[in-house]
């Protein structure tokens, strides 16, 4: 009589091994956000102690009218996509992308990370409460901390004027503090 217990373990381990290949990559509508969307912050947002996104960050708004961003009018429209990228100090490649997707009156939160510049981002398995637990502090601003930050000369941060915007200081949310 063959002991079947080892085969049960084999099945379990095979499942775990297969799972290690899982984790969806960046959605198509997120790829190319640097050129397709509007950067909200004028200069990179610096890291701070306890920073959940660990690094220098830029925040982009997609599917939101430029006029609405400039007016910092909230709430965001249905279908809005906010993309936050983070680059660790001393490195040149983005290691984390966090997205907030407006669906009706609520947001869907996701995060994607990678180790190396030539590697695909992969979705991380964490509950949305990890995001909302912090973003709840920005509930009054439709859950998004970052406000649109126009360049000092009044120019906007549209993709075509990105260089002008990049000369600005390092502030994010005027009333709520950096996140």
């Amino acid at each position, binding site marked *: 009589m*063959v002991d079947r217990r*080892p085969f049960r*373990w084999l099945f379990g381990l095979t499942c775990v091994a297969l799972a290690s*290949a899982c*984790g969806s990559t960046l959605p198509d509508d997120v790829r190319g956000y640097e050129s397709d969307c509007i950067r909200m912050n004028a200069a990179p947002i610096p890291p701070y102690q306890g920073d959940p996104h660990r690094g220098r960050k830029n925040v982009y708004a997609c599917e939101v009218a430029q006029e609405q961003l400039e007016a910092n009018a909230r709430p965001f429209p249905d279908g809005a996509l906010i993309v936050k990228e983070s680059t660790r100090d001393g490195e040149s490649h983005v290691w984390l992308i966090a997205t907030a997707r407006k669906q009706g009156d609520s947001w869907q939160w996701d995060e994607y990370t990678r*180790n190396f510049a030539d590697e695909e981002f*992969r979705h991380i398995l964490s509950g949305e409460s990890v995001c909302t637990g912090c973003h709840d502090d920005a509930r009054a601003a439709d859950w998004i901390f970052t406000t649109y930050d126009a360049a000092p000369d009044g120019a906007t941060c549209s993709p075509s004027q990105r260089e002008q915007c990049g000369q600005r200081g390092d502030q994010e949310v005027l009333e709520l503090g950096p996140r």
Partner: protein
Amino acid sequence: MRQRHLFATWFALFGLVGAAAVPMLAPSAARAENAFVLDGQVGPAFLTKSRSRAIGHGFKPVARLGLRMSLTPRLEVGGAVSGIVDSSEHYRVLGGLAAGRFALWQRPVFSLGAVLGLGAGYDADILHADLEADAAIAPYGFLAVDARWSIGERWLVGLEAGWENVSILRLGLLWGYRFDG
């Protein structure tokens, strides 16, 4: 410089293990009737140096193939090739190690053993906290505990949990085949 010192330490340890094994080889080989164990192990590994929190980056499949000679009923000594199964160069953990297994507890169809391996291999980026390799070759080592069952006269199956290269935690299924040399 630190890497060179580390390599020298591993090299010294490797030499000590080898030197300790040599006196046992001749008399024990005859006593053990030249029995060999060819075994393999596959399973998931947790890469402790991964910064990415994605499962696909923090966990990778690993495999090891080993051939050991039974010196005594409890001690097997030989070599192994071990590595991460991934196409990316950043995760190319692949090395050759001198390995030994000592049976801590033995029953007719079951054995609980401790496994030690020391060697060298490709210095993959994922082995480092800053995700950048220092050199082409790095010292390799692993420490593991396995539980294996005998199936019939020659086959072995079991589980192994190990710590490899100070940065990889692995859990795997192992199988083996015992044969006479």
